[in-house]
């Protein structure tokens, strides 16, 4: 294990992964790839890219919600077929279950998995404390703010103890201040759970602040055009935004992203 808490053991491997879609009018859209990427176990990797570059498609492939049209996606050395065990996902949109209380939301996956009642109760209690939701355990999501609802979704994912957590712009609907605070919490969770995290985000700030590595994707079909090591220590928080290195990193990922975004807009206007 490195001093950054990562191992060299790959958690996820993408080999020449491609995705294509058929549109309703019968057209063929090349959405993603070919893409090669290795996620090291315990790593926090963010992916940024222009709109429509296939970031969410990549997440669907990793979570087993979609199969790649070509190439191989491996989790812990095994091909991903269907939704694999040990993978948790948090979406940008509110995915809390409005008909369940906070504690029943958190317990949802555990109950479906058939865990013993005591085990479920213990995990839920821990998650309520961990995510600062104890006061709201009997509340319904409609009674909570957007940030609190997202915490519920994260808690619901974490109680399953996933080894790989996929985050699809989980803070996208939150204000900047809440995003920074949630980012701090996410880093704390990541350190304490030793999970591998893949974050898809539009926010360069978020990617630079949170990640060990940042992958920059091209416009559609999304390919990885740059991988940047941030070099942050594992014990980090949102105060890194005041570091001079933070600005350097932002510039480093913005340069290729700017070119790609311009290319994307030009293509859309053509």
């Amino acid at each position, binding site marked *: 294990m490195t001093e950054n808490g990562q191992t060299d053991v790959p958690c996820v491997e993408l080999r020449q992964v491609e995705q294509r879609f058929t549109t309703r009018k019968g057209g063929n859209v090349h959405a993603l790839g070919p893409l090669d990427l290795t996620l090291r176990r315990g790593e926090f990797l963010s992916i940024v890219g222009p709109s429509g570059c296939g970031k969410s498609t990549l997440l669907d492939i990793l*979570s087993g*919600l979609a199969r790649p049209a070509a190439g191989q996606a491996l989790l812990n050395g095994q091909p991903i077929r269907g*939704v694999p065990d040990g*993978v*948790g*996902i948090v*979406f*940008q*949109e*509110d*995915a809390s*279950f*409005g*008909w*369940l209380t906070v504690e029943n939301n958190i317990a*949802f*996956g555990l109950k*479906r*998995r058939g865990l013993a009642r005591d085990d479920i109760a213990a995990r839920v209690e821990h998650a309520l404390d961990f995510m600062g939701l104890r006061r709201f355990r009997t509340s*319904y*999501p*409609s*009674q909570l703010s957007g940030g609190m609802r997202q915490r519920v*979704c994260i808690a619901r994912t974490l109680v399953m103890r996933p080894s790989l957590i996929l985050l699809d712009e989980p803070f996208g609907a939150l204000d900047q201040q809440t995003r920074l605070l949630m980012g701090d919490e996410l880093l704390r969770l990541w350190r304490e759970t030793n999970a591998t995290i893949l974050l898809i985000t539009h926010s360069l700030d978020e990617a630079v602040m949170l990640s060990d590595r940042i992958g920059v994707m091209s416009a559609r079909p999304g390919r990885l055009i740059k991988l940047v090591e941030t070099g942050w220590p594992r014990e980090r928080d949102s105060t890194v935004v005041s570091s001079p290195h933070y600005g350097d990193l932002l510039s480093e990922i913005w340069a290729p992203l700017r070119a790609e975004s311009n290319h994307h807009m030009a293509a859309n206007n053509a």
Partner: protein
Amino acid sequence: MKTGLTAIPYALRLLLIVVLVGLWQVFCSIGLLGTGIVPAPVTIWHDMCAVMGQSASRAALWLSLRDILIAALIAGAGGIAVGMIVHPIRLLRAALEPYLASYYAVPTFIFYPALITVTGSGRLPIILISIMLGIVAMITTTLTALDGVSRSIVRTARVFGLTPLQNVMYVRIPAAAPMLLSGLRLCVSYAFIGVIASEFIMSDAGVGYQIAYAYDNFDTDTMYGYIGCVVVLAAATTLGFDMIAAEPVKREGA
């Protein structure tokens, strides 16, 4: 207990009824409305009490109510089931949608004589016509309700590894519950119309038949008594549904 601003609509609704019934009573009392044609509310109340005091009348009401419940339940459950099956099959939905949209353009009651020739007279054609009235409303409500379930919730359910049946039972139905309850309320309303109107047209039992019988025999007291009972029953059922639906709607923040 409702307090403050939330209680105002309820109070206004009640006030509206009180004012209308009060005006009706006053108009009858001062002779503006002929009581031989439209009895005063107090008279109808007495007629209702008289009707409810007879065991034969209570049996007629119970018979109609039973068939209304059977029809509403079958139309509701059937409509939800069909909606759930059709919803994920895009081609099937696209093929069915024009028929669903134009279904109510055809007056369903024209099939009542045909149903009697197939099933014979009795309660079965009454229940069938009531199901036919309600089921399509439930199917379309179910389709719309499922459209409204957010994609992220559906995807979350998949990530939790739910089987298709678990997905429906634990996620899709609860997520769509507020709207499904509205659909069920429609089914009950259609069942009321279907059962009472069918009994009215061609039947030898039930509250619809009793109203028609009283009308044919110029027994307006009994007729209005039964009409009052049906109005109260229908209003109570709708109110009951609203109360049941209020909790899921409140939870969902709708």
